[in-house]
């Protein structure tokens, strides 16, 4: 698989390490009191719950043997077709 790193250009997937779902957002710890069970629930979901879609999936790849950037990749899990890639610090594509 080839990943179009926005910084380095297209590179082999072996240069990257995979993390997973890039749509997850770390819950805001300041939003509610730390002891609030709602916050714990939100963190539970953030840490443990993952969708496993057959189709487009936005996911984090770390270009460990390259620019060391975290790259947000949109990949079709059925055929590994990559629809786009953006750096974590840039706004993600709307997909």
């Amino acid at each position, binding site marked *: 698989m*080839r990943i179009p790193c926005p910084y380095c250009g297209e590179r*082999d997937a072996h240069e990257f390490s995979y993390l997973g779902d890039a749509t997850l957002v770390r819950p805001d710890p300041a939003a509610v009191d730390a002891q609030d069970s709602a916050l714990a629930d939100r*963190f539970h979901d*953030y840490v443990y719950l993952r969708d496993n879609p057959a189709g487009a999936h936005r996911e984090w790849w770390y270009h460990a043997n390259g620019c060391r*950037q975290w790259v947000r990749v949109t990949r079709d899990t059925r055929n590994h077709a990559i629809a786009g890639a953006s750096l974590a610090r840039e706004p993600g594509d709307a997909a």
Partner: protein
Amino acid sequence: MSRPDKNRLASGGLIDRAAPLSFRFDGHSYRGYAGDTLASALLANGVRLVGRSFKYHRPRGIFSAGAEEPNALVELRSGARREPNTRATVVELFDGLEATSQNRWPSLGLDVLSVNRFLSPFLGAGFYYKTFMWPASFWEKLYEPFIRRAAGLGRAAEEADPDHYEKATAFCDVLVIGAGPAGLMAALAAGRTGARVILADEDFLPGGRLNAERREVHGRAGAAYAAHVAAELASLPNVRLMTRTTVFGAYDSGTYGALERVGDHLPVPAPFQPRQRLWRIIARRAVLAAGATERPIVFGGNDRPGVMLAGAVGTYVQRHAVLPGRHIALFANNDDAWRGMLAASEAGARVEAIIDVREEVSPALVEAARARDIRVLAGSRVIATQGRKLRTVDVATPRGREQLVVDTLAVSGGWSPAVHLTCHHGGRPVWNEAIAAFVPGASPAGLTVAGAANGSFGLGAALREGAAQGAEAAEALGFPVPPLDVPAVEDEAFALQPFWHVADSKGAAFVDLQNDVTAKDVGIAHKEGFRSVEHLKRYTTLGMATDQGRTSNVTGLAIMASLTGASIPETGTTIFRPPYTPVSLGALAGHHRGKDFRPVRLTPTHEWAARQGAVFVETGAWLRAQYFPRKGEKDWLETVTREVTAVRSSVGLIDVSTFGKIDLQGPDAGSFLDRVYINGFSALAVGKARYGVMLREDGMVMDDGTTARLGPEHYVMTTTTANAAKVYQHLEFCLQVLWPELDVAIASISEQWAQIAIAGPRSREVLARVVDADVDVSNEGLPFIGAVEGRVMGGVKARLFRLSFSGELGYEIAVPARHGAALAEALMAAGEEFGITPYGTEALGVMRIEKGHVSGNELSGQTAARDLGLGRMASTKKDYIGRVMAGRPGLVDPARPGFVGFRPVERARRLRAGAHFLSLGAKPETANDEGYMTSVAYSPHLGHWIGLGLLVRGPERIGERVRAYDPVRGEEFEVEVCAPGFIDPEGERLRG
């Protein structure tokens, strides 16, 4: 003395008669020529029996002339280079080649296990599931060893492979797979546009069928035309022609796997050359021109040596100038086989008869055959064969039966396009009625198929399709396409009447020659309900051997279809996975073997430590000094005890460069650290260091280490050796993904800085002698946990940290890596007066256990900070990674195992890491498990063994006795629970 190659034609062929080669098969010497394969050379010498079959040990001969060969598998070379299951049909002959037949005992001629033939009723379809099932105890003792000996495919070498294998990557615009007529034209069309082209072919001679047939192209013989095109391609700087290279797989994003046999055609690889090279080819477009594979017709006795694919007979005659036999007959259902046989006849083969299942055959072909004195038996079929090697063939004709005396029977049931690579992304081939064959369905993105692989069997069509697709691929990539003069070659008619199996023939009729699967086996599978193509395959093992059913899949499917009454497309087809042909494990491993499996990282003081006599240990990818034995010391324990004693009483030094070191700079560096550590760092004073613990988001401890503040916006973090890369990646994630608003830049500086720790009561005096005059290392100038920048050894920049892992007064001195060895020497010289002692990871471990620090054994990924007695470090004034999840009920349960120390009640006992704790009187079973010993050491300070571990409610049980239960070593004894610090719990030594 070599025997003459009696079946060689006096002229013709693409062999170099000026380059005779001698080779040995089963101990006999023979002669061949450059340009021969092992198979063609064997046939030239009249060797027709080359192996025994897999299950029934039936005599087998050469069946094909290519990669599809199911029978002629031989062991090549000997000793460490012995290679089983090589196909004689693709082994390029070299001088001194040595090959042995397989699967026979004691000799090829007399095979004792051919008795299996009489057991064949028990070895039929599904025999694994039926015959050898009961009683179960017989399986291991009797059945399995018997089957292993009886069935098998050669022996692997028993010594290490002496050759090298390597991996390489190539990029191109257009990859052309196969250098037959379609592939040559595709490469030429794309190459002339200026696109970067790779043309790969498994053969050593480009040309494909042009080398195996008698056809004229552009006024030249086909082979000459192929050589002409290959020469032009070789002259183009943007084209790379790779022969002996099999493209075996189509992977994602236009990546193709290819195996180049760099040295397989040589007795040993050339100096500094690998035996094979595994290519990863990244192609923007690809043209598959892999040709087609001929398939046989199945009839009784179709496996005798002498029965051969018709196209193979043509190849041996035309390309190798070899007559596979003296008297040849053809059994076919199509025109193509006729043409090949007529051409063979013109080249000098004695063709006795053509047997065709069709009643009506083109009058022109019949005329041509009769003109060459070849009998034509139309509407006929082969119903039996005789001879250990083929002697006679029984034919049923419309006028009755007759027997032909022939030693070679060429067979053709039509051709199957080599669709394999089109299936590698899940594409399913589709049935084409006109040619009675599967043609490519959906292909991987960027790949098109040309020529026979696409079902276009005419030579003219192959040339045209190849040229068109090569040009189209280049054009799609933006290359301007110049006009190309495609040779006009007439498209021969491809007339075929589907015919698969002579159902009324006598004797075993083999569908899959390599796995010994017969038409009867397909019938059994049908009767027993295993009718889906996937069931058929697994129940009968049809198509499961190393040839993946090249010559058998479609035939087996057709026979099943005729039994069920369904059509072939309704019956389905199996699809193909990589690799197209077998790839050796050596090539897949490349240089990643033995010590080269991964790089070894050496510390800056490695050479120095080696000179001190260090014993090294692997810690992750690093080699670190484990201990430094001296003459007269009887074991490692004595050495380590001396090293620990030296540190505690005077001074010692150890290289700690392997710790991960991360530089953090920016106005938000402090608040960033607050978020990744459980404790605070933004309030840390400049010039100070602090021990920190970081968690994973799930609340478990990820890593620990000290981080120093060198300036208002500048910190240096250390991580454990093992987690250096992981922590760095985690920090980048936090910065780039979680908190991009923080203004912090980080960089790994692990390699850039050498770091040496000195420890012991005399360490300050040693340090004072290596720092430059302006550096104050007094207790006031560099107090405990101080961190300053200064210079050492006369101007070398350095970072000085007053830290201690051992519990003694200690410092860590970091210098640019290139000065690491010099620093070690300087420290040794400065400490000579105090008997400064180099120590290794063992002594370091002993001292940290004495001191009660956690380390890798305790940071197991299953421990929370609280479990390790580090819970009080956690700030309650800020959020940090893992805070919320660390607070979940399961992790704050007071019944969780907690970190405590242990000592044996009988002080002479040796403690063992891994021993489990049981309450006194509790039965040793899982339900009573109360934790385990994580680390142990012999404490020179206390004079007995001590341990650290995790014990249920451990901190509440100080002073209690529990049992340490170690069933692995058969030990069980009482230990006393104590606080984890065994030495100087108040830390007075550190601060002195």
